[in-house]
């Protein structure tokens, strides 16, 4: 299964150091290096049709207090090492709104639900639920409470796909 993580607004530290990150999939290391706009990797899952869950974590490893520069005059932050998670694609399909089901856990223990911004040192973690369609339907109903039949229709869809595949 091909996974691609993209970031945006990557800002280096005070001495020009790039953010260092580590990506794990079910606690297995997939990437450990300076951040790049795009990070592709593959995981050994059978396919994206079966129902399963996997924990994806992106750790922000090298942030120190010196990477946040504050103006002595105004107290405003005038420089900071940080970046933002833009998207995660699985086999070419964007997670888009599903990213908000993840959370950012700062190293001091503070949890920021739905946060894609890597400011304080910590990690973004998201329980990836496959297939994505099922996850989307479940999430939509959980958030909007407007689709009580989603599970029945999803199962009918799955069964119809299986029948047509045997045709």
């Amino acid at each position, binding site marked *: 299964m091909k996974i691609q993580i993209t970031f945006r607004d990557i800002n280096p530290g005070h001495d020009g150091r790039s953010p260092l990150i580590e990506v794990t999939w079910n606690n297995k290391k997939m990437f450990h290096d300076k951040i790049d706009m795009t990070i592709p990797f593959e995981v050994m899952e059978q396919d994206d049709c079966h129902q399963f869950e996997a924990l994806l974590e992106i750790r922000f490893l090298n942030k120190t207090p010196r990477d946040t520069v504050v103006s002595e005059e105004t107290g405003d932050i005038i420089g900071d090492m940080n970046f933002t998670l833009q998207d995660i694609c699985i086999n070419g399909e964007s997670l888009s709104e599903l990213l908000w089901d993840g959370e950012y856990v700062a190293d001091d223990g503070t949890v920021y639900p739905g946060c894609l911004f890597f400011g304080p040192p910590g990690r973004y973690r998201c329980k990836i639920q496959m297939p994505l*369609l099922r996850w989307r339907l479940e999430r939509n109903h959980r958030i909007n409470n407007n689709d009580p039949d989603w599970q029945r*229709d999803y199962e*009918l*869809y799955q*069964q*119809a*796909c299986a*029948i*047509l595949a045997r*045709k």
Partner: protein
Amino acid sequence: MSGLDLARHLAWAISLDQGLDFAQARDQVRDFYSGSRAIQDAEVQAHLLQAPTMTDAVADGTVVDDFLEKFTAWIMAHPHNSISDLGDWQADFSQGTTQAFDSFYLYFWQRRMVFFHGEYFYHVLSMMQTGRSWAWIHDPGDLDKNDALIISVPFCDTGSAPPDLDIVLDRCDQLGVPVLVDCAYWPISQGSMLDLDHECIQAVTFSLSKTFPCGHARIGVRYTRSNYKDGQHLHQRIGYNNRLSAALGRHIITGFPADFITTKYRETYHLLCARLGLTAGQSVLFADGDSTWCEYGRRSILQVYGLDLDPTLWRNRICLTRLLENMQLVLHLTQE
């Protein structure tokens, strides 16, 4: 698997087999058994490819009259339905049955328009949006001498004969209530009967839209008594009608008999009704579903029309067109 469960599975499989994604298929499945669309029959579609060109049709000054003459013979030759001789009635081209409805609303503008519960939603919407006096009625006793009645034969809500049709028409005769008979489903039915000797019947209208895949050409005919004069008849008299539709209509009815669809699909229709637990009717497109079928029926049509009416007041009329169009897949799936 049978009944509604089977119906849902078939709807999903057919929709996905058309290449729709989940969201598109889900939208289609919601309306899968609603509506009243003609079957996209392959033989008819092949015949339509041989239709006259638009320029030839528009230039043909005799096509409308010729179509009307042929249509009258064609509809009366339906071997499984029975209607009085239409030869003495004046025939006018009609853009579907709908133009005849509009004309009737206008002709009897001083009367309260009445419809039996279950009739075509177009009537309700037209009445509400033009502020006309109108009412649903439930039995002949609800009729008043100041009413004008539109009644569909076969009945819109079931695809079968309306209940107590003769009693209704007798009552209209007694009260002097003018009646328009909407025969949109006539060619797709078997066992339909209509006695035009009732003096109350002022107009009868037919359409090809539910029988053949030509609904967007709006091909219909209206018959009225000889003293009936209105705008629609004027257009017929002065030769100012839609020659494109008439030419296409003539092309279709000269290629297929009036019972073509019913004869071709009747056996399959009964097979589907049996497998789905539906009550078969006189029309080959519609069957009657019990209360478990409430998610289908005409609920979605009410929504499309923007009518805030309780859908449970109507029968669960189940349209089998999409299944009849995909019988190869249906048979494959039902054998699994």
